[in-house]
């Protein structure tokens, strides 16, 4: 009799813990200060040298990732969240680097070229499970406000970081990985041949257009 009761109690407890675990696994992680990372560019990325340096202005940064939770970087192990929207982080990174290279206009009206950025990926992509694969990918529509012409410039940045066992180390590695891929993407954009060609072609069209005053 006693053994039967003991067995029933054990079975009940086991079922209870299994159900509790299953329900916990099904829940989405919530952002807390201890699982939130702050991704920043750090030092500005040096831009390429233009023959006739234009002034850029970032008119808009739009999220086109289709990700319902853009701030959630990693779902496993209680989740890792970003402290700001990816669009804000990318805008800040581009503005910092353009400003450092003296390529940022003071406002949209004084800009030679307007940038409308479409962000396709920000954070971690699926890797080999032996490491973290960071990826930032965006396309910028470079527009000449005077002629109304625009050209597309693509940029992508990748980074590989080691996996870790401890939550603290996972968080650190993910943060480094995303920062490195952001830096790589910004660098790919600012030092890319595509931007050089787009800026040259768009400014040439303004210079060639009759009745348009040259930029100061």
């Amino acid at each position: 009799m006693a053994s039967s009761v003991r067995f029933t109690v054990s079975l009940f407890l086991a079922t209870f813990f299994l159900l509790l675990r299953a329900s916990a696994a099904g829940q989405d992680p919530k952002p807390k200060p201890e699982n939130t990372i702050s991704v920043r560019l750090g030092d500005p990325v040096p831009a390429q040298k233009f023959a006739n340096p234009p002034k850029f202005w970032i008119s808009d940064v739009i999220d086109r990732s289709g990700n319902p939770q853009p701030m959630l970087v990693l779902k496993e192990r209680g989740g890792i969240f970003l402290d700001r929207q990816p669009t804000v982080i990318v805008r800040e990174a581009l503005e910092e680097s353009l400003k450092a290279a003296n390529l940022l206009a003071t406002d949209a009206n004084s800009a030679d070229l307007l940038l409308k950025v479409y962000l396709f990926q920000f954070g971690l992509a699926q890797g080999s499970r032996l490491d973290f694969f960071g990826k930032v990918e965006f396309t910028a529509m470079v527009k000449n406000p005077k002629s109304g012409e625009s050209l597309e410039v693509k940029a992508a940045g990748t980074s590989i970081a080691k996996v870790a066992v401890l939550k603290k180390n996972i968080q650190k590695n993910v943060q480094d990985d995303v920062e490195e891929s952001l830096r790589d993407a910004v660098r790919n954009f600012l030092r890319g041949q595509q931007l050089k060609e787009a800026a040259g072609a768009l400014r040439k069209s303004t210079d060639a257009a009759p009745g348009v005053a040259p930029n100061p």
Partner: protein
Amino acid sequence: MRIGIRTMMVVLLLACAAAAAKEKDATPQFKTAEAKHFTQAEGVELTPAFGDYFYAELREELKKAKLAGEVIGEGETVDDADAAQSIVVTGTITEYKKGSVVKSTLIGFGAGLRSLKMDADVLRRSDNQHLGVVRIHVKIDPTWNEKTMAKFAAHQMVKDMKVALKAQAK
């Protein structure tokens, strides 16, 4: 006799330390290296995500190998002065076989393994001159995912590239 062995050990240690220091201080062979996304030959069925991941791994391996002072992204500009000392790595995935878990389990001895063949060309940036051709063949267990295969392939490719470029420099 004892002094002789001790002296020999000290000399060996010094030689090893000198070799390690030489390896550490060795200046990179090139100023910049640019890896491009590899194209896929007809009949190769790999996901676009594989291409992206392999590209990332290849860049990471190039950084680790210290073949160039700087590993730049695809389509980035290089100063004209550095172009002659810069390389571009392009390549093609020529063959991919998914492998068979059944064959691998029942037969073993390398049967049913997942296999990947790749060709890579190393070109000098300034004049597109061929500096080396690397051909690799990677085989892994069919239960492992393709990204793991990309990791092994990138490692093997840079290892072979380093050897080929060293031989070419001599």
